[in-house]
């Protein structure tokens, strides 16, 4: 009897723990326009075209105002039980990790195995990017601050919300004080937008992007136009999505025999067993369906975070 009660209690605890929606990670990043206008960028030449790429490390090392703004935002978000990921710490960790990996060798002198994809995946990832920019404006002896904080979904690139405004001109207050004032004054409005986004997510599901790709010359000899009982694979995927998305919400902006992109895919935040799911869980569920009879498709699911997944069919 005791064992039965213990098992039941354990199951209940597991259910409560899993009933929480996966919490998105937020990170403040200085906007491209702020980095470039303040000289924190590196020029990269790509196929004959020179582009300016923000240099976050330099900005964090040299700009006290940026550090102050990030610290203030973190403080305010932590107060709402939503601590932010630290960009500086993420950059440091990546560098340290890379250094450690470079120095790790086996007794036989072999280095760590890392595919190019693993290397790309190590780049700092978060679910919601908070882009920060500000500009000091002078009105004679007075100056004021124009401030923008915009939240963007890292996977769909959609703007979740923004708070912006120009503070009252001041004769005496220095720029750091004005910046802090602007952050404090705009934070509630910004959090209201975030709250709207989270409420929408809990009502009509998490928005993700899903890409289906095909391995070239795969051993299974399939592509998205392969027919099963007279129906093309792409149509079968379409039908599966129709059934498994919230209210059949998704769009397919592009599809060919090798690639299909699905955007604005609204997935339920919980699966049928009440467990929280994200893009990865949703993609695995889809892959599982197509691995079974009558398709027997070998599928590979790539993890891209809470809001993006890639399924490659044809091989593992």
């Amino acid at each position, binding site marked *: 009897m005791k064992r039965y009660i213990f098992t039941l209690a354990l199951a209940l605890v597991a259910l409560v723990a899993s009933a929480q929606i996966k919490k998105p990670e937020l990170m403040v990043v200085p906007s491209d326009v702020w980095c470039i206008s303040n000289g924190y960028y590196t020029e990269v030449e790509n196929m004959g075209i020179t582009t300016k790429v923000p240099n976050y490390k330099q900005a964090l090392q040299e700009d006290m105002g940026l550090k102050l703004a990030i610290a203030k935002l973190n403080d305010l978000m932590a107060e709402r039980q939503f601590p932010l990921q630290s960009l500086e710490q993420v950059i440091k960790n990546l560098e340290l990790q890379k250094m450690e990996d470079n120095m790790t060798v086996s007794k036989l002198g072999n280095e760590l195995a890392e595919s190019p994809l693993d290397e790309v995946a190590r780049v700092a990832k978060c679910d919601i990017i908070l882009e920060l920019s500000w500009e000091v404006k002078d009105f004679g002896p007075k100056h004021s601050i124009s401030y923008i904080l915009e939240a963007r979904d890292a996977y769909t690139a959609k703007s979740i919300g923004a708070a912006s405004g120009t503070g009252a001109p001041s004769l005496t207050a220095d720029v750091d004080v004005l910046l802090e004032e602007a952050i404090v004054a705009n934070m509630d*409005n910004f959090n209201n937008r975030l709250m709207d986004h989270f409420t929408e997510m809990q009502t009509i599901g998490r928005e993700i992007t899903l890409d289906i790709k095909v391995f070239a010359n795969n051993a299974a000899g399939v592509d998205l136009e392969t027919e099963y009982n007279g129906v093309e694979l792409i149509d079968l995927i379409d039908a599966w999505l129709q059934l498994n998305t919230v209210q059949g919400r998704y769009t397919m902006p592009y599809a060919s025999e090798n690639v299909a992109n699905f955007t604005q895919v609204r997935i339920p935040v919980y699966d049928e067993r009440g467990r929280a799911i994200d893009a990865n869980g949703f993609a695995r569920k889809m892959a599982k369906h197509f691995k079974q009879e009558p398709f027997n498709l070998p599928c590979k699911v790539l993890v891209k975070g809470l809001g993006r997944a890639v399924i490659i069919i044809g091989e593992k």
Partner: protein
Amino acid sequence: MRKFLLSLLVVALCMPVWAGAKKKADKDTNQFRYEIECAGNAIQGTYLVKVWTYSRKAAVAENQCRKNAVHGVIFKGYGGGQGCVSQRPMANTPGVETQYSEYFNRFFADGGEFQKYASIMPGTTETVKVGKEYKVGVVVSIRKDDLRRALEAAGIIKGLNNGF
């Protein structure tokens, strides 16, 4: 003995007058007739608002400013401009005041919990006579973070972390 009875009679006669004045003040404030506007940038965790309260008695209006300021922050929000940032109401779900009327009746009762979250900024009172009544403006500092936490704890509004 006679003196005592006379005093008792005077007190008894005054009671309805006091009760009437109290009733009038309650009526004025129960309707929450006020205007709310931003009064500048406040320190972290607070809002600085100016509340204009209407009443036939200037003193009553001044007394009710704190209650109206808290009410305004919860249910009305206020506009921005001149360096001020507009704020949405804390409880922005339609019908929330009616849905939780029992809680808010207690919250806004005389001596109620609302007092914990508002303090009048000294020397900011302005009185204007409008027709037969007074419009009294006072700058009030609202401890909005504490107020929000109290409303979250009571289940009236959701926290940012809710559901995660």
